[in-house]
């Protein structure tokens, strides 16, 4: 009896479900009358743009894959890597992502290799890349700090909500394989700084609490990215550069130390300095007196004739040292505190003196000093002031602020930010704006 009842139930249930579904499928919207026409896609040509080869490069220089400029441009395998606002996201709140610029083709591509990625969600490996912080490239691996938060339900705004997730720490992305690896959280501390990576070991400064004194210190630390092992050295040194199994560290008083990465022993370095470049000839560095060079063993210290008071910034290539010298100032109009750039209310502005830096270059031994780029400041015109830069071949890739002349008030204003950085041709003096949104102009 029960079996018969079950059979009836089964038949009726299945028939009902199938009938209901079939009825719904049949009653779905019928034939469509109007279709959108997108035409046929025809691939366009990618144009090569002008690029002149040069005998100079940065292949033999240690210290360039760490993005040393204030707005973080780094060179790796002859290409420029930089962070900029995500061009795929047109909203005002668009976050940053990592781009790659090929100086020979002029192409700017996302380092995230997925062409369907919007780079605006945590699906993207570079979502939330900390643009105010440096990244480091070694052996096709990019090491970077990543920081963002989100609500899983998209509606809640309560940070105590279960759906609120905060991501803050170090990540690694392999450009060849597309592998993404989360290296460490940054929950316990609030700052991870000055990253240097050597043979897969990441050196950095972490702000940690001293349990004995209760005080916070910027301690030198390392993490082996393969094993995940973190070492806290308990000293307030800053990692500067690494080569041949050695890491150069600078103490708060600028005295230098050398860490043997394999043994973990710390030895005294080559004097007092910071911010090194290592070349085939030795080291080029800055100390309290100015720009200097020395032999690979630290001997033969030589002043290169640029005093610390004049020196603005410097960058070393295989053949030259490029450096800026403050030689002039110019008065520009900036908003008073709380004012807005570009506001039509000019009474809320004030004049401010800005350094004008000229770019020079010289040989590693200090010879052949040559003026490369002197900003041309003429009335009724616009001009660029070079800031920090990298050099590749005969081109300087430079963080630059542009200034426009306001005839009505006879003063210069800060120009519209229509570029991420510019390319300055040291042979012709031509300037190109480079912008992920528009490509090169």
């Amino acid at each position, binding site marked *: 009896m029960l079996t018969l009842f079950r059979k009836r139930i089964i038949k009726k249930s299945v028939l009902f479900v199938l009938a209901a579904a079939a009825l719904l499928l049949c009653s779905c919207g019928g034939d469509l009358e109007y279709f959108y026409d997108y035409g046929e896609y025809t691939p366009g040509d990618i144009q090569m743009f002008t690029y002149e080869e040069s005998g100079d490069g940065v292949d033999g220089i240690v210290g360039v894959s760490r993005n040393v400029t204030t707005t973080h441009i780094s060179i790796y395998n002859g290409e420029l890597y930089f962070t900029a606002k995500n061009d795929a996201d047109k909203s005002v709140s668009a976050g940053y992502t990592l781009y790659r610029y*090929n100086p020979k083709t002029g192409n700017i591509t996302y380092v995230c290799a997925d062409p369907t990625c919007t780079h605006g969600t945590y699906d993207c490996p570079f979502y939330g890349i900390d643009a105010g912080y440096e990244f480091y490239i070694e052996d096709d691996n990019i090491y970077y700090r990543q920081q963002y938060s989100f609500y899983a339900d998209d509606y809640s705004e309560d940070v105590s909500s279960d759906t609120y997730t905060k991501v803050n720490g170090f990540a690694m992305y392999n450009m060849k394989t597309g592998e993404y690896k989360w290296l460490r959280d940054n929950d316990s501390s609030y700052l991870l700084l000055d990253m240097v990576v050597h043979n897969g070991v990441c050196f950095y400064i972490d702000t940690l609490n001293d349990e004995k004194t209760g005080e916070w210190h910027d301690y030198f630390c390392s993490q082996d990215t393969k094993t995940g092992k973190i070492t806290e050295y308990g000293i307030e040194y800053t990692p500067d550069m690494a080569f041949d199994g050695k890491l150069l560290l600078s103490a708060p008083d600028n005295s230098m130390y050398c860490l043997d990465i394999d043994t973990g022993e710390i030895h005294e370095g080559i004097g007092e300095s910071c911010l090194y470049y290592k070349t085939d000839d030795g080291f080029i560095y800055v100390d309290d007196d100015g720009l200097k060079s020395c032999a690979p063993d630290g001997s033969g210290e030589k002043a290169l004739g640029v005093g610390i008071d004049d020196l603005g910034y410097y960058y070393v290539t295989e053949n030259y040292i490029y450096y800026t010298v403050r030689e002039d100032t110019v008065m520009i109009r900036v908003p008073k505190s709380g004012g807005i750039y570009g506001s039509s209310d000019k009474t809320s502005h004030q004049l401010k003196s800005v350094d004008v830096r000229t770019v020079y270059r010289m040989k590693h031994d200090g010879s052949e000093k040559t003026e490369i780029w002197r900003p041309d400041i003429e009335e009724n015109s616009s001009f660029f002031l070079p800031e920090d830069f990298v050099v590749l071949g005969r081109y300087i890739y430079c963080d630059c602020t542009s200034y426009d002349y306001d005839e009505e008030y006879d003063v210069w204003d800060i120009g519209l930010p229509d570029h991420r950085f510019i390319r300055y041709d040291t042979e012709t003096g031509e300037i190109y704006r480079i912008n992920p949104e528009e490509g090169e102009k």
Partner: protein
Amino acid sequence: MKYVCFELRKIFGAKYVWIIAAAMLALNCAVALYTANETKKTEMIPSDVAVDFFRLCADDPDTIRENYIVFMKNIAGQQSGEEGGGTPTSNTYSDTYPDMLFYALLNSTDTSFRTYGDDIEGVIKTAETNLYELDFSGTPHGSYAYRNQSEVIRAYTEARNNVRIGFEYPHGWGEYFAYDAVNIFILIVTLTAASTVFTSELGAGILPVIRATRRGRGATAAAKIAALTAVSAAVALIFALSTFAIFGISFGCSSPYNAIQVISGHRLDPHVISVGEYFAITLLLQVLSAVLLSLSVLAVSVVFGHFAATYIFGLGVIGVSFLLNGIFYNHANAAVRYFNIIATMNADGLFERYRSVNVFGFPVEYPIFIAAVFLLLSVLLAAVFALVYSRASSAERFGAHRALGRRLLGKKNGAGEGI
């Protein structure tokens, strides 16, 4: 066939299978109804009202355009304070909902459909630039990175040239596809049915007897596999179709012939398929996943030989899949995110955009890869079950006689020794 029918009768004969199936079906219907009602609350305009408006737009676009121009002039007039400026909150199309909402819905839908070609072109151009750069850097044409970019160009060019989006108000389907709780219910019922097939015989003590018969091994094992596959498929279809019925009744359904790209979240779907075809694919994936779970449970049950252990294993598989699907991944290509039963049953994540797995340097799309692996695993598990089931030792046969003897004599201990 006789054996299959016998196995089916055995599964349907277990009372608890019915109880759990009925409870899960009722629970799924309740959850689906609740979800549909909650989703309806977020609608700008009820779908039936919006459908009527879109039909009007398709039938008489000139009138709608004129109405829209008057509407915009009225807004402009009101903003500038001109006399004669009408009210922008007029109700031409519905007494309840202002025109502004209808135009907003029309604009957003129309813009989304119209710009589809440009968006896909953007993806192709990005991949072309990537490919050019890979070429420039000397990346081998046989590498995964190179092939993957080429495949993206091929897939999206095909989509760009062949996807035909029809003008309509898409409704019903998106809501149905987004509802994924049904998969849990399907898996629980499948697990319950699968746990019954082998362990009930073992528990009753008749398994060794069956094994000892002429067709008690290979044929019986095959019948068990076939019956369980049929039951799993039926369960998946009944649950999916009943869910579809609930969402269809709640929202109605737009054309199943329209391109899948009209569904929100599938804009970058590179497949040239219709909504109806995608619906069929989701059903197939649900069936495939349910069959895989049931066969894995069957294979484990013949090894464990214990109902509780088998059931716990099945629950573990569901739980792990659920966790893998639900936990936070901060990278889209984390394979486990898609390579699990729950994610496969949801299907949306696999189809929303082109994603591939690196198989010996060749990019293989996730849906194809997963379907192939699931099929292979199913065959493998079925083979494992058949093999283990068929291998009964003489001692086991002897044990069967003893067990039978114990039952016949109705004694608990020691009875039947030596039979």
